[in-house]
Every structure is written in structure tokens, then in C-alpha cells.
């Protein structure tokens, strides 16, 4: 097993005077898909931004191969870690091929603006993301799903071992969500790329992650294989939601079904307790 490349040590993150993450230690497993989940404002995107050096830690550090990120030249980091922000803004009036080729920026020199290697990588990135036929279109004119694929293509063209994705499925319909996540899995499988993604959907997270990190209020509540981590107890602790966890009928991964049925006011509340009990029993098979 190869050593983990990306880690955080005593990481404290803050915006102005609000501390979001306090003294967090973390290892990102090498060659795996890691997914961070948690309720809104739990600090998961903030953590991802710090891992991609978009946010300077208040104290502690993010380590790449044991070296603090702040000690590594930005360009060198960009050759090791690719990052797709939540809402990237494309240059106005740029074509798809041009945008994807910008991913080569960290590898290029001013006298080496378009090498054969560049071309090979860009063609491949576009074919993998099925954006090759969009090459000459303007990014402004694309649909949300197409645009997201183009951004991923750009991140692929960057050819980094580690890829950080901040909610890559927002704005996408369910088919495109699956498409994007399948692509992520495939990249990990074929290239052994380490992927860290923040996802909103707990079920997608459980299905696509090798390693799941559940966060609440800036702390890591649980981490490990989704099958071990996702339980009704955890969902209640992290999201404050009663639920039933059953095996996913397709993959067998844990599937969270919000567990307290909506009730007419005034009805006897005995049902809630019953659902809770069902929850306890139902996740037994997954363990």
C-alpha cells in the first residue's frame, strides 16, 4: 500500500472571527474515493477549500507528501492537486476546447504553449467526459450538465493524482448526477486517482465512496467504509433526522430512508417510537 499523500494536522479554519473547523486531524486514503458529508454549514466545503489551499489555515497545516502546502510553490501543487470549486466562473466568450486546455496551465511554459503531450491529454479528457463534440461551442451557451462535464474535463486535463470536487452534482438532474459520479468512480478505478468530494446526498455518498467522512459542526463524527459508518444512529446524530437504513436494492450499500412519516397533528405519536425501533432492526443486515 502506498503512503497517503494528502493529510491535515491540527487544522483550524476560520473566516474573519468565526471559527469553522478547530484542530482537525485527517488522512485522505490514497487511491480511494473519499466523500465528505454533513449538514449545511458543518464546514465540509471549508475543509475541502483548505485541502486545495484556497483557504489559509488559521493554525495547523495541510500536508502534501509530508510538506506543508504553504511551503510548496502554487504551480507545483497544481500539478498534484486538482480542484473544482462549487461555482466556477468561466471567462466570458470562451470555447469548450479553450477552457479544457486551460487545465494544462500548470504544466506549460511560456515557450511551450501547446505540446503534443498537452494535446493528447486534452483529447483524452474531452473524450472521457463526452465533451469532444462540444469543442467549438461557447461555454456560456451550454446546459448545466454539459457545463459541469466541461469543468471536470478541465480538471482532468490538469492530470493530478488528487482531485477535489466541491458538490460536483449541484444543478444537475438525476441522470447527469449519476453520469458525473460514475465518471468519478471510473477515473479512480482506471487511473488510481485519489478523489475527495463533498456531496449533499447521503445515499449517493454511500454508494460511491470507498471512505466516508461524516462531519458536524467542524468535527469529524465518524469515518470509514460506508457500510460501517451509515447507520440510523449516525444519521440522527449528524443530521438530527430519524431514519431507516436499508440495503440499497441495486448495490447493497446502505440506503437512508427518512424515517418519521409525516403525521396529522393530534394523531397518537406512538408511531415515531415504532419507526425508531424499525430503524434499529433494519440496519442489522448491512452490518
Amino acid at each position, binding site marked *: 500500500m502506498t503512503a497517503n499523500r494528502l493529510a491535515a494536522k491540527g487544522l483550524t479554519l476560520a473566516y474573519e472571527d468565526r471559527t469553522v473547523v478547530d484542530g482537525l486531524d485527517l488522512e485522505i486514503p490514497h487511491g480511494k474515493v473519499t466523500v465528505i458529508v454533513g449538514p449545511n454549514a458543518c464546514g465540509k466545503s471549508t475543509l475541502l*477549500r483548505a485541502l486545495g489551499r484556497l483557504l489559509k489555515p488559521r493554525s495547523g497545516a495541510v500536508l502534501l507528501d509530508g510538506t506543508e502546502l504553504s511551503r510548496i510553490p502554487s504551480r507545483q501543487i497544481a500539478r498534484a*492537486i486538482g480542484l473544482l470549486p462549487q*461555482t*466556477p466562473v468561466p471567462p466570458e*466568450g470562451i470555447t469548450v476546447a*479553450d477552457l479544457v486546455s486551460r487545465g494544462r496551465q*500548470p504544466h506549460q511554459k511560456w515557450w511551450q504553449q501547446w505540446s503534443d503531450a498537452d494535446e*493528447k491529454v486534452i*483529447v483524452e479528457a*474531452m473524450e472521457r467526459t463526452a465533451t469532444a463534440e462540444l469543442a467549438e461551442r461557447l461555454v456560456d451557451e451550454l446546459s448545466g450538465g454539459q457545463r459541469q462535464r466541461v469543468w471536470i474535463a478541465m480538471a482532468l486535463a490538469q492530470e493530478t493524482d488528487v482531485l477535489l470536487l466541491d458538490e460536483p452534482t449541484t444543478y444537475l438532474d438525476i441522470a447527469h448526477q449519476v453520469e458525473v459520479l460514475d465518471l468519478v468512480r471510473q477515473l479512480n478505478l482506471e487511473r488510481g486517482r485519489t478523489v475527495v468530494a463533498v456531496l449533499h446526498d447521503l445515499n449517493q455518498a454511500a454508494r460511491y465512496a470507498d471512505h466516508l467522512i461524516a462531519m458536524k459542526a467542524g468535527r469529524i463524527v465518524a469515518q470509514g467504509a460506508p457500510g460501517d459508518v451509515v447507520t440510523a444512529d449516525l444519521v440522527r446524530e449528524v443530521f438530527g433526522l430519524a431514519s431507516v437504513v436499508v440495503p440499497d436494492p441495486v448495490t447493497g450499500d446502505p440506503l437512508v430512508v427518512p424515517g418519521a412519516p409525516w403525521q396529522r397533528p393530534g394523531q397518537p405519536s406512538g408511531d415515531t417510537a415504532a419507526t425508531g425501533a424499525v430503524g434499529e432492526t433494519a440496519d442489522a443486515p448491512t452490518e
Partner: protein
Amino acid sequence: MSAGRTVLPAGYSRLRAGGGTFLLHRRSICVATALSVLLAAAVVAYLCVGESFVAPAEVVRVLLGRPSPDEFVVGTLRMPRLVTGLLVGAAFGAAGALIQTMARNPLASPDVIGVSHGAGAATVAAMTFGITSYTALPYVSVAGGLAAALLVYVFAWRKGLDASRFVLIGIGISVALGSLTQLFLTKGDYLVAQQAKVWLTGTLNGRGYDQAAPLATALLLLTPALLWAARAQRGMSFDDDTATALGIRVGRIRLGLATLGVVLASVATGAAGPVDFVALLAPQIARRLTRTAHTPLLCSALMGALIVVVADLLARKLLSPIELPVGVLTAAVGAPYLMWLIRTRSRTGGTA
């Protein structure tokens, strides 16, 4: 992978030279060539027209350094002013492109970040206190422009240079300095007001190699920095996060572009007064012509030079023998064209 298929972004060509490969934007090259040709034509026309008309053939002879009977009129009387105009226009065009890229705001210009008003306030103050010699004033205005921009930096710097903060504080300081200028104008002597008004509009009248020399030196010294900027600008068209993820040092580039823009604009203002609409208009026109995803630096400079030369030609000739300040006509030449481009082109330039 389909062999032999090229994915070069639309509109680009690849050039191999020695060990390097370069990407060239074909349309930009065409636009740059066309602008150069137009500029050359404008230069010849500029040298032909004046109190007496000189045949274009004679002008070309003088330009090529051959003996000609019109050498005095063309080479000694008209040439110095033309050279100043060319350099001023190019410097303002480039400064505008840099500042708009840095601020990510198409409304940004040296006017917005304090340079013009700093220079204006310093110059008018100097005039009010009796300094009127054309050898001293340019230095006063360069100093004023740089000082104002420095003030904006100091106030806007807070763990880095945030673009919108920089622009807002720039406007604030510009407005304050502009008000000071107004105060000098209304409280001051009528003659000083008239003279200051002309300076504040920007004029090439009486400008020559004395003013052109510092500007030329500055442009020459800054050439390596400008080459760097032309390439660095590409990365600034992303948002900060995406750019950082690509390994672009956003903060450093922003600081570099701003400094470069401020220096160019200050020196140009020193030479001809605040002809600053050029800096606002030229980059926007150039970008609409080249249709690139970033503001083209070279084309902006060429466009700026073209606008100033044509405007000064009109300024000398339109109401002759009365000479208008060139600043009156730069906007009159550039603005309608930009408005026409906005109206007809579907593409918009620059994000707000």
C-alpha cells in the same frame, strides 16, 4: 483516441519554433495587423495635414529619412507631437486593459483608481500656486498620480488586494481629489481655471520630445513586464478559486497588473494630461474586435494609439485655426464606435 484529430481551440493556430510551440489567436493577429495598417495610415495623414498641406509622398520620404523640402514642417514641427500622441495612446490603452483585467470590471480605468484625479489635483494645485512651466508640471502630475494610487493601495490592502475593494476605494479617493480640484478651480483665478480646464481635458498642444522621452523610456523599461502581463492576463479571467486551483498566483498577478497599469497611466498623464477615456474605451473596443476570452493587451495599445492620433488630427483640423484639446475628441472618436459595437455585437465583454 481518434488519430490526427486536432483539438486546438477554435480560432487558434499552433506555431512551432525551435524547441517551443506557441498558440496564436488568428483573429487577434488579423486585428493587430489591421490596426497597425490603419495606424500607419493615420500617421501619414496626421503628418500631411496642418496649416499647410504636405503631399503623402513627401511625408513618406521624410519618414524614411530621405532628404525632402518639407523636412522642417513634417520632421520638426509635426513629428514630435505625433510621437507623443502615439506613445500616450498606447500607454493609456495598455493601462486600461491591465486595470480592467485586474479589477474584473469593464468600467475600471485609471480614472477610477485615483491616477487621473491625483495627477489633476496635484497639477491644478501647482498651477494655483504659480507653477506653470511645462517642464515642471509633468513631474508634478506624475508624482500626484502615483501618490494617489499609492494611497488607494494602502487603504485597499487588507490581507491582499481584493478587486472590488480596490475599485471602490479608488473611486472614493478619486472623487475626493476631484472635488479638491473643483475647489481650486472655483476659488482660483479665472485665467488659472481656463488653463487648468485645458490641462484637465488633456492636450497635445506644445508637447514634443521633452514629454515623449520619459514616456518612451518607461515603455521600453517596462517591456519585459508587459510581455509577462500579456500572458498572465489569460489566467485572470477565471474566478479566484478556479484560478488558484490551476496554480495561478492570483494575488501576485493582480498586484503586478495594477502596479503596471498605474505606472503607465501616471507617466502618460504626465505627458498629455488625463486623456483617460482612451483607457476606458480602447480595451473594450479591442476585445470586441478580437473576440478573445481576455482583454488583448497589444491590440488595446494599438487601438489606444489609433484613437489618440485620429482624435488629435481632428482636434487640430476640425475648427482650425482654433485648436481643441485632444481629450475632447478621444471620447468623441472612440465612444460612438464602442456604442455601435455594443449595439450590434451579440457578445458581451468582461464580467461585472
